[in-house]
């Protein structure tokens, strides 16, 4: 588990960019944190690191947005609106594929979360400041964290 304090938007973007650049195949990232903590901002940095050209914004209404202009497809989920439960929507097939899947509010999509993933928890300290915890689940994600954060 790695904990980092970020003192500006630029620092957040920088670390997200590095992480995005380090991803080259199937990967699953769970983003947790309160409203306004910076989950979508972090995802924009990941997308940039992946080479995505399109504008990345919040999938709260759409639940899933796909971006295909990067090195890998980026599937950006926001399960916030699934709080009351959902029939199988076929998300598992997206998440298992050779793509980066980023999931906000994963608690409402638990059946589709695989065994190995990187959990990133963002905490709002004040307007400029966040702390981020990186919690890898699985060897591949431990290696990824070491590579990006050490």
């Amino acid at each position: 588990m790695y904990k980092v304090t970020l003192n500006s938007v630029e620092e957040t973007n920088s670390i997200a960019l590095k992480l995005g650049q380090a991803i080259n195949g199937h990967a699953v990232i769970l983003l947790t944190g309160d409203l306004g903590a910076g989950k979508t901002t972090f995802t924009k940095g990941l997308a940039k690191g992946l080479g995505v050209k399109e504008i990345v914004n919040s999938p709260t209404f759409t639940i899933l947005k796909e971006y295909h202009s990067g090195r890998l497809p980026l599937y950006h989920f926001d399960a916030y609106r699934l709080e009351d439960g959902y029939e199988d929507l076929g998300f598992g097939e997206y998440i298992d594929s050779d793509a980066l899947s980023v999931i906000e509010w994963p608690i409402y999509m638990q059946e589709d979360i695989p065994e190995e993933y990187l959990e990133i928890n963002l905490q709002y300290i004040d307007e400029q400041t966040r702390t981020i915890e990186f919690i890898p689940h699985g060897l591949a994600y431990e290696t990824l964290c070491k590579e990006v954060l050490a």
Partner: protein
Amino acid sequence: MRTIVMDTSNHYLAIALYEDGMLRACRQLEALKQQSELAIPVLKDLMDGQHWQMKDIGEMVVSLGPGSYTGVRIAMTIAKTLSAVMPIRLKAISSLAMLAGDQKAISIIDARGNKFYVGMYENGEPLMEDTLMEAEVFETFKNEHPDFPIVALVDEIPLCDNLYLLSRKAPYIEDCDCLVPTYIKGVEAKKQC
């Protein structure tokens, strides 16, 4: 009787035209994530080649799944739409039965997360309900039935021939609007029709 047969339930697109038991035209190709783009153009191409028109079609046979979330819906949606606007009757056959054809076999389809969809068939009849098994459970199951060859989804399987053959014994769907794919999961959300 002119029949369209179509399977899109997994990673193939398989379409064929039959008339009174005779195969007239057929195409089977790997088409993962492209079935929705290709299904209608390929169907049209096959029908044009036979100078068939939609008004000449009496029935359509599709696979029911299990398989890919979107795949199990494509052929079925095409079939349901056609049957809603034309006097075309429908039949639907399990994808696991489709793999076995009329052989004695245990058929398997890869389900994600180290699991398989498994069916057990002989002479076109199911010996158990199509089911979802963890890989280890399947290994045990397989060893309990050494006299059943395992059949997986590969190029050599004549998907349309198998569907057509099995459909000869299958009933017509009475309420086509209520036809839904088989989508075997741990807990199913069933729609009431």
